[in-house]
């Protein structure tokens, strides 16, 4: 472990060095030359994502997709959620089921806190099958709980290992504290940041070099709240783990409550991924992808003119 941190430290230092030595005028990025501004300092290359962060990020792409889809397969085996320790069928918070209408037609019915919604075609009844989540959303696509569990419990291990390595690195390299935790100044600017986001106005220049406050909150929230929550609620569903750590049941309000929180955390991930991908597209798709692949991010400095 110490060795790992050391080598990650070295990678971190190398990153810093290259950041310092990054001479904007030496930029060989083809896109820079497209730019109208003749001044070379108008485009700055910053080393934005260090290698361990990039690796961890891309590993999470397949891991999360597989965990979500195999999780929906497992959910389909008993498509209802409850609070507490028991699953009293008449007291579900959410249920997704097929129902037959008087005319003999089968419909998908999703009931949330007592409010029924017709979700035929997606939830409850889809593709001519009585199933909560549709075939395109589950791994495997057919109804197969045992196989869904195998996928889920295997990739859960990889997800946890990736998360632990990332966390160790983020703490050791101060990535967590210096890049992800909002500063006092950030908090003061939160109103403006919300407004800017709603107007799809994105930070430019020096401000684009660091995460804005909503970005920090989203990343820190997913990394340090939702991810641990989804792992702990997953473990709280294990009868063996419940005997080793009975406080898990107390903290989450029972095994069925843990299952409900696990589901909510899953859809928090889905929501995060959707917004994240939309933002990546809106704020310069190629620049963003390049920065998460190579580490290098281009920042445009507007209004910087060199009239000589």
């Amino acid at each position, binding site marked *: 472990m110490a060795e790992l941190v050391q080598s990650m430290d070295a990678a971190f230092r190398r990153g810093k060095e290259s950041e310092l030595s990054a001479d904007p005028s030496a930029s060989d990025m083809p896109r820079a030359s497209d730019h109208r501004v003749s001044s070379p300092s108008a485009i700055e290359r910053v080393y934005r994502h260090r290698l361990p962060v990039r690796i961890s990020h891309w590993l999470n792409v397949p891991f999360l*997709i597989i965990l979500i889809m195999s999780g929906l397969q497992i959910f389909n*085996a008993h498509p*209802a959620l409850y609070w507490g320790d028991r699953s009293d069928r008449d007291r579900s918070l959410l249920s997704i089921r097929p129902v037959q209408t008087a005319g003999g037609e089968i419909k998908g019915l999703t009931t949330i806190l007592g409010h029924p919604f017709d979700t035929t075609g997606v939830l409850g009844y889809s593709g001519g099958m009585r199933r909560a989540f549709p075939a395109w959303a589950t791994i*495997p696509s057919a109804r197969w709980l045992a196989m869904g569990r*195998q996928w889920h419990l295997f990739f859960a*291990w990889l997800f946890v290992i990736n998360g632990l390595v990332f966390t160790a690195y983020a703490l050791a390299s101060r990535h967590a504290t210096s890049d992800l935790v909002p500063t006092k100044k950030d908090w003061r600017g939160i109103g403006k940041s919300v407004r800017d986001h709603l107007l799809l106005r994105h930070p430019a220049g020096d401000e684009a070099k660091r995460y804005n406050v909503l970005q920090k909150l989203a990343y820190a929230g997913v990394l340090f709240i939702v991810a641990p929550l989804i792992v702990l609620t997953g473990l709280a569903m294990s*009868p063996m783990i419940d005997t080793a750590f009975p406080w898990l*049941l107390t903290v989450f309000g029972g095994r069925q409550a843990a299952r409900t929180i696990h589901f909510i955390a899953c859809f928090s991930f889905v929501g995060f991924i959707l917004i994240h991908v939309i933002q990546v597209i809106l704020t310069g798709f190629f620049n963003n992808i390049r920065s998460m692949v190579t580490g290098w991010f281009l920042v445009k400095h507007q209004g910087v003119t060199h009239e000589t």
Partner: protein
Amino acid sequence: MKHERAIERRRFLKGTLGAASLVALSGCDNLTQSSWFPASLSKAERWTEAAQRAVTPRDALAKEYGAADISTIFPANGNTDPGTKEYAQHVTQNFSEWTLEVVGLVQTPRSWSLATLKELPSRTQITRHDCVEGWSAIGKWTGIPVGDLLHHVEPLPNACYAVFHCADVDDEGIAYYESMATADCYHPQTILAYELNGAPLDIPHGAPLRLRFERQLGYKQAKYVMKIELVESLVGIGGGKGGYWEDQGYEWYAGI
């Protein structure tokens, strides 16, 4: 030179990414159908078992609940009636002729009638039953600790597993069975229950004897138990995976 490397790395990463999304979306069903991939996935079972056993004290008890927590309806899943002629006869005799045999790798094989079993010291526990499907129900179980029975028969040192043979068969005539590590039989909450919520077990819940193996999922809780066989290896019994559901692809270690 540096630039070239970067391009190469980018190409590699793009390839990986493409492969990853392919795997995650359309390729998953193909992988599932292959023989090597599920075999790799199933390795996680051993990691999970090793990790869970490492963090759980051997005799740590599953949470025991209060009378107020008992489920009004305790669902009966899986087989709800063995449906065989022999079993039907036991039902008409009110299980007076039902015997439990403990055989295999033991010093002194023995069998008990249901009546003599009920005279042995019993344990009552209000515990949560967690089905692999996701639901949970709480019930009050009374039965004989399996460890007590094993003390009577004295398992041999090579008796690694206890196999529970049941009276029920599925539609294809395959007999139901389950197994656990012999060490787990000595867990204080591992009992052969004959009462649920103060009444003799009914047929859907496994009359007259069903296993309670509290720290694992519902499919391990064998119903209609007739025989406990101590063995060195699970190979050659049923499908060889250690249980009816295990032979259908469920994990033998059902702690999660």
